[in-house]
């Protein structure tokens, strides 16, 4: 059971992610973030709730919409924003960008931008943990769109037949890019309804309720550590921004957006905190601290230097270099 103190910490982590995503959006609009971004505002409870249920040495694999997972697993707002802004202090030394945030030192083994590709990787990390007998588990977070690609099927089947300590968490935000997932998927719950094909029990959870996510992932993690194999969880959530960049997401009905915004994961967490007797002043204090933390992160990222151009020719090989011939 998650108590008030822990829930307040989870709330703060979600608020920090939200503030950082808003800052990323504003920096993109100001031309300070190049390329593209896939913001996860609205999805915070999935990442933070799942993280609350994991050990520090567990493995996490995420998608190009992965800022929240990087931050939930220990990446700082500053190093994430610096990465987006092409700065030397970025979490990937400005060689990855928004779609590839990675914090390997805390088990966040990467954000992958080919849909579904990281599900087999998570199965492999779980296989490795099982063979090494470490009790670690691996978690793959993926969108609803990934449930229609072959790697999803191959990974789920392999994880099930090898009884791997893996948890597959679908963040169903109801749109694969711009198309409603229901229009391109044969079953109503794109992940959970496929579970029986792998001998698993699919579970649908409220992905905007950080406590519900933490409990569901906690149960799945316990099963995995007990040797009972993988789980497939479908967390229903919603994007607050469009798919990427400046996408205004006009393809989503206004009343649907309104309904989901009322169920903002931050609001749900606040309601739970109030019900647990946490005073409003404590929440205001957290909100103030988050605002200051985000402002400081933006300022530090802005002030950081760009990468040394020579960095383009490092990190290809284990020797640190890029030489491919004599």
């Amino acid at each position, binding site marked *: 059971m998650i108590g008030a103190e822990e829930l307040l910490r989870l709330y703060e982590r979600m608020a920090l992610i939200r503030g950082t995503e808003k800052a990323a959006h504003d920096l993109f609009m100001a031309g300070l973030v190049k390329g593209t971004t896939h913001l996860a505002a609205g999805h915070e409870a999935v990442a933070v709730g799942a993280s609350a249920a994991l050990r520090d040495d567990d493995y996490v694999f995420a998608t190009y919409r992965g800022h929240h997972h990087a931050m939930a697993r220990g990446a700082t707002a500053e190093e994430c924003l610096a990465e987006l802004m092409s700065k030397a202090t970025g979490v990937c*030394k400005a060689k990855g960008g928004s779609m590839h945030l990675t914090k390997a030192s805390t088990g966040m083994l990467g954000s992958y931008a080919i849909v579904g590709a990281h599900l087999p990787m998570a199965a492999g990390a779980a296989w*490795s943990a099982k063979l090494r007998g470490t009790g670690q588990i691996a978690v793959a977070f993926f969108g609803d769109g990934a449930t229609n690609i072959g790697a999803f099927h191959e990974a789920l*089947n392999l994880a099930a037949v090898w009884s791997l300590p893996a948890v597959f968490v679908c963040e169903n935000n109801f749109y694969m890019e711009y198309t409603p997932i229901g229009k391109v998927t044969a079953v109503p719950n794109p992940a959970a309804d496929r579970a029986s094909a792998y001998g698993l029990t699919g579970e649908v959870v409220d992905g905007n309720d950080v406590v519900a996510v933490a409990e569901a992932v906690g149960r799945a993690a316990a099963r995995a550590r007990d040797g009972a194999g993988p789980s497939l969880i479908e967390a229903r959530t919603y994007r607050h921004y469009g798919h990427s960049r400046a996408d205004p997401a006009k393809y989503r009905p206004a009343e649907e957006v309104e309904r989901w915004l009322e169920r903002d994961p931050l609001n749900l967490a606040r309601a739970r905190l109030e019900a647990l007797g946490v005073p409003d002043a404590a929440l205001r204090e957290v909100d103030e601290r988050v605002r200051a933390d985000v402002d400081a992160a933006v300022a530090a990222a802005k002030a950081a230097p760009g990468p040394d151009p020579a960095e383009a020719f490092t990190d290809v090989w284990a020797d640190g270099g890029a030489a491919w011939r*004599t």
Partner: protein
Amino acid sequence: MADMITYRAAVAEGIAREMRRDPAVVCLGEDIGAAEGVFKTTVGLLKEFGPERVWDTPISEQAIVGAAMGAAMTGLRPVAEIMFSDFLACCWDYLANEIPKVRYMTGGQVAVPLVVRTANGGGLGFGAQHSQAVENWALTVPGLKIAAPSTPADVIGLMAAAIRSDDPVVFFEHKGLMAGQGPLPPDGHVVELGRAAVVRDGADLTIVALASTVPTALAAADRLAARDVSAEVVDLRCLVPLDMAMVLRSVERTSHLLIVEENPYQGGWGGTVASIVADEGFELLDAPVRRLAAACVPLPFADVLEDQVIPTVDKVVQAALALADY
């Protein structure tokens, strides 16, 4: 006289030697365990090392290579088999987008010490989807090391280097060479990746070859000697790292270069070798660089048709005579 070993047995021997010295080495692939491999290249591994280290997989190339990647990122040294190199196309995402890039795009945070082994090439009449020489596919992707041995001793020595490498290695085992025999190298035999070998000394022209085209070139060199043409044969052994220093030293001696490749002329690896010689060795040459590669058609089934398409001893002799007469 040294003990002899076949090329196919050398594959299993090379893997077994590394599995004995490093418990982190594990194998996975279709039919590699109980069935001991469709090419009998994993004979004895399951028996010696058990099911904890030798894993039969479903027909799921993405899961095989993706799981190998996840395991490699988390402390194991997986050796993944893709049964026929043609099937690399089924998991190409991992070889094109994931494995070669993850170290780089995370700013050096993760390593992928794995080997993807695969049976490559023609000569056995398996038709267009089981006979291709596709080593050039891997050469298109910065971040992959590529080995393609021509002898049993090199299979063992390069396998040792590939498995010990902290970089990902694609290891092409040539189907047409499997039955061939050669001396069994002593324990501890390692052939450093990226070191070509002069396998026959000569004065009049250099023939650069790889895998199956090495014995083809050596047979041609015998016939050329009878016609007073002295051919030097260089076995590249690896495409990445590419030992151009050795090729250029040989061309310095012979001033004539013939490149013999089994992959198609269009996009074949010889184009890279030829362009480097043109850039850096132009003054060494007394004649244009000549490439003898597979014709740019799908591999046909019938032997008489296949011989039309891939390099043969006759074709090498003719090309070499024309070049020597230039």
